[in-house]
């Protein structure tokens, strides 16, 4: 199928879906509206809400807060993940000692930490950043750990035979290998940074997309909830596209077949 035809089909799905939603929410079928607008709103109301947010400019403040929280969560979580992943992989004893605790914390659904972070760090952005960090950290940590552990012994031996000392092995062999694993999980970890921010906002905040959705929900403004969800998904799509661009530049050396690790 050509790209144009594919795009047409994709848009077609959206149009059909929205049209059905609009019809079921406004037209009575057998004397009954299948999707009562009070609970399901209508696509036109949702669109009107989105347009209003952007035309009055109220949405920007929330978008920027959420974006900022996501970026901080991603940067801090990744940095910690890389450092600890490296450390554990190079010190098997440390890794063995901490293993049960790492597994324990990772098994914990991170949402339950949100109230604790709100208590400790207040209702500002840092409690959301902390939640995002706990999500991003483990993904990056596990990938970097794996990346350092699974450096091919032949490549390592080759480095040593070419005269590399420990520091040079770190820089030319371990580091690129670990980074490649980290970048291969970039989509997941960036996605989780956004999840952490939004869930945190939803559970208690004064601004952000999650806050917007939560506020709308509080006054039974279903159109507002859907509008918030719509803006959120477009936001994530744009970020994901940015990640793809970064990835294409950084991972040119990798064969296409091995993509999709992590």
């Amino acid at each position: 199928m050509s790209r144009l035809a594919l795009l047409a089909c994709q848009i077609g799905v959206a149009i059909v879906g929205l049209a059905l939603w609009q019809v079921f929410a406004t037209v009575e079928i057998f004397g009954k509206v299948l999707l009562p607008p009070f609970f399901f709103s209508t696509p036109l109301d949702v669109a009107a809400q989105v347009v209003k947010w952007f035309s009055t400019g109220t949405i920007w403040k929330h978008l920027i807060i959420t974006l900022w929280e996501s970026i901080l969560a991603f940067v801090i979580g990744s940095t910690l993940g890389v450092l600890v992943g490296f450390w554990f992989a190079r010190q098997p004893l440390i890794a063995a000692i901490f293993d049960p605790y790492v597994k324990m914390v990772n098994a914990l659904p991170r949402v339950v930490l949100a109230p604790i972070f709100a208590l400790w760090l207040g209702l500002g952005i840092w409690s959301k950043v902390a939640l995002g960090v706990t999500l991003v950290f483990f993904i990056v940590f596990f990938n970097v750990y794996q990346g350092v552990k699974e450096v091919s012994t032949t490549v390592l031996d080759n480095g040593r035979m070419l005269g590399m000392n420990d520091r040079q092995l770190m820089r030319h062999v371990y580091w690129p290998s670990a980074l490649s694993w980290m970048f291969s999980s970039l989509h997941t970890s960036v996605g989780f940074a956004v999840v952490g921010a939004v869930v945190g906002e939803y559970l208690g905040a004064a601004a952000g997309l999650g806050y917007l959705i939560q506020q709308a929900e509080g006054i039974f403004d279903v159109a507002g909830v859907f509008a918030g969800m719509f803006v959120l998904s477009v936001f994530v799509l744009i970020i994901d596209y940015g990640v793809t661009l970064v990835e294409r530049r950084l991972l040119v050396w990798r064969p296409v077949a091995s993509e999709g690790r992590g």
Partner: protein
Amino acid sequence: MTTAEPAAIALEDATVAFRLADSRVYTAVEKANLTVANGEFVAIVGPTGCGKSTLLNVAAGLLKPAAGHVRIFGEHLSGLNRDAGYLFQADALFPWKTAIDNVAIGLDISGAPRENARARAQAFLTSVGLGAFGNRYPHMLSGGQRKRVGLAQVLIRDPKILLMDEPFGPLDAQTRQIMGNLLLELWSADRKAVLFVTHDLEEAIALADRVVIMSAGPSARIIGDWKVPLKRPRDISEVRMEKEFHELHREIWSVLKDEVMKGYAQTSQIAEAV
């Protein structure tokens, strides 16, 4: 060559043993004695799993022998062998570096100026016939091309000794001949000492000055040593037509054949035991 000059590589009663998971000791190679003179091309041939690569790793200093000595130009070897370049059997290029950066790395890490290193790497890439492929990553190259990059990567450091572990093993027959000729051409320029491991007797005779045969493992020993009477420079594909080649091949094969059979028998025994 005078006898006073110390051999490039000398293994003296080198025994290599590994401790297995159940704390038994597996002796891979027993009391191997082998010398490679400076400028000499020696090939080791043996059945699969006989410990040929093990012996190479000992000469490289990647493995320490459990008993016996390794001398490199007369000096006792402890730690890595800094005089040796090692061409591995498996892919050993750095996948995140382009071909030219892979070749230049040996100079980069020794502190050579970057421009200088790049220029020399380009020259070496050209000498292995890949002058136009410098900015390709390893995964964009064919198996034969990757071996060429590997060869350039090792040779750019100008090692006095070249260790090669079935370097052309995974390549197809034509590419192997081309690589063999390329190797001989590069080697003839400055005649480094070469220790070349292969399971292919024909390849060994065509390339080497001396062919050494190992017995089937475990506790593999060196059981034969033949001088190759063929003149140089050689062409790998033409040298196979010569009478001396066939005579030597027949002679060595009569010894090697039994070991190969033993090797097979042992492998199948192990398979049954497991």
